[in-house]
Structure formats: structure tokens, C-alpha cells
């Protein structure tokens, strides 16, 4: 919502209101990793997660995702894009699973042709881009369940 300098909320700019983020109790202890080569998607996914109170980190490709895990970091949720340079999402997912990473990995893509291969690589969920708050909430419901 855009707040005016006097502190009054500009109702008209808050359009449909804060409905979505109240659907799920913000799980403030959940951490996430965004893996995407596109700056716009990085910004949007980062913000979506921030808004839901989820601490998150952003990397640009599959290799960086592997590296961050090798440095000892772990995440509850990984949002994995498919088409990326250096190492794509399918290969990165395969490697992470081979490393024993049990985090929830949600594939986020527009490439329906490769969906099956992507799932087979070890995804727990798959969502079509662009990601929205409600798609993210549906992914998070699964994280909570396996908790």
C-alpha cells in the first residue's frame, strides 16, 4: 500500500488489500533459495518471499545453487528455474538430490515440454511462471506438512 507523507493509507492503491499474505501464518523460521538467471524474476520471487516473512537468498544459476550448499548452507525451500546458463535446473536438482539434499524443491518454469524430466530429476512441486503469492502459498503448505 502506498502511504502518503501524512501517514494516511491511500486506499485506492491497496487494490485488493493484503488478503493473500493472511491465508497462511507467516512461517518466519522458513528459509528459501531462489535460483533464477533473470533479474526481473529474481526481484519478484525475492519480494514474494520477503512479503511472507521468509528469509531468502538469490543465486543466478544451478552451479551457484550447488556452491551455496557446498559452503554449508541449507534451505527449507528451493525455487528452481529450469533454463539457466552454466548449469540448468534439471541438472542442479539432480546434483542436489545426489548430494543428499532433502529440501523442498519447487520447479518454476514455462517450458512444459521438459516438465516431466524436471520432475524426474527430483522436484517436489512444479509451478508455471510467473509465480504469484497464491502459487507460493500452495508450495508452502507442502513445506509445512513435511515440516
Amino acid at each position: 500500500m502506498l502511504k502518503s507523507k501524512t501517514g494516511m493509507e491511500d486506499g485506492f492503491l491497496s487494490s485488493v488489500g493484503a488478503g493473500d499474505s493472511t491465508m497462511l501464518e507467516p512461517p518466519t523460521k522458513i528459509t528459501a533459495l531462489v535460483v533464477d538467471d533473470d533479474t526481473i524474476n529474481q526481484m519478484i520471487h525475492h519480494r514474494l518471499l520477503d512479503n511472507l516473512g521468509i528469509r531468502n537468498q538469490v543465486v543466478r544459476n544451478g552451479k551457484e545453487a550447488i556452491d551455496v550448499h557446498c559452503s554449508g548452507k541449507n534451505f527449507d525451500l528451493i525455487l528452481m528455474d529450469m533454463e539457466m546458463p552454466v548449469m540448468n535446473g534439471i541438472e542442479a536438482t539432480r546434483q542436489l538430490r545426489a548430494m543428499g539434499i532433502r529440501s523442498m524443491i519447487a520447479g518454476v518454469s514455462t517450458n512444459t515440454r521438459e516438465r516431466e524430466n524436471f520432475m524426474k530429476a527430483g522436484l517436489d512441486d512444479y509451478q508455471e511462471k510467473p509465480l504469484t503469492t497464491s502459487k507460493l502459498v500452495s508450495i508452502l503448505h507442502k513445506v509445512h506438512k513435511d515440516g
Partner: protein
Amino acid sequence: MDVMTQLQRQWREHTAYLRKEGYLDDQFEQLQKLQDENSPDFVAEVVSIFFDDSEKLLNNMAGALEQKVVDFKQVDAHVHQFKGSSASIGAMRVKNLCIEFRNHCEAQSLEECVRCLRKLRYEYSLLKNQLEYLFKLEQQIRAAVV
């Protein structure tokens, strides 16, 4: 009607117009929902990156189509990226043109590709003007409250 109310009405009407004409779809509204007092410029920032990326991609497409031997896979790669970024911000008309463009790339039809690129540049510049107007209104609204 005071200035503020008038500006707000203009903003509302312009947003509705952009949705009705298909310039923007639901995804743009998603972006607006992500904007709040902690990130008051979120939408403008994302759109600014979109403008930079778009101009680069459009030039890349033009360059690829001017080659003696056109690499349609390369052209398609640029269009695919443009399709992705336009979908991410809710730029529906641009996105749909990208889908059409990709069909021409697959068919390896140079003439159709060139025609499509022209349409795409035009559509993109229309969108840019519309969004810049919207952001200007927002600036005026913020200034009017001082």
C-alpha cells in the same frame, strides 16, 4: 473536486483502461500487491529493469535477423527471453506477440519475423508510454500530499 481526488481518479481510470485494452493482465496487479511502505518503488524498479532488458533484446533480435545467414534458434532465444520477462510483469499484448514471433522463428520465415519484430517494437513503445504515464501520475499523487 480537489487535486488529490482528481489525480486518484485519473490513476484508477488509467489502470482500468490498461487492463481493458489488454496492455496489462492480472500479473501486473500481483506486482502492485507486492508494493508497500517498505518497498514503495517496487513496481517502478521492476518495470525499469524490464525497459532496459527489452531494449537490449529488441536490438539483439534485429541484429540476429540482419545476418547473412539468419540463425533462427538465436532469434528464438531472444524472443523466448522477452516473452518471459513480459509475462513476469503482466505485459499481455507484448507477451502474445512474442508467442506469435516464436511460431515464425520455428517456421524459419524471415519475412514474417521481420514483420513481427516491427509490430513488437511498436507494441512495446506503446506499453512504455502508458506505463510512464501511470508512474508520472503516481509521482504527482505522492507530491500532492506534501
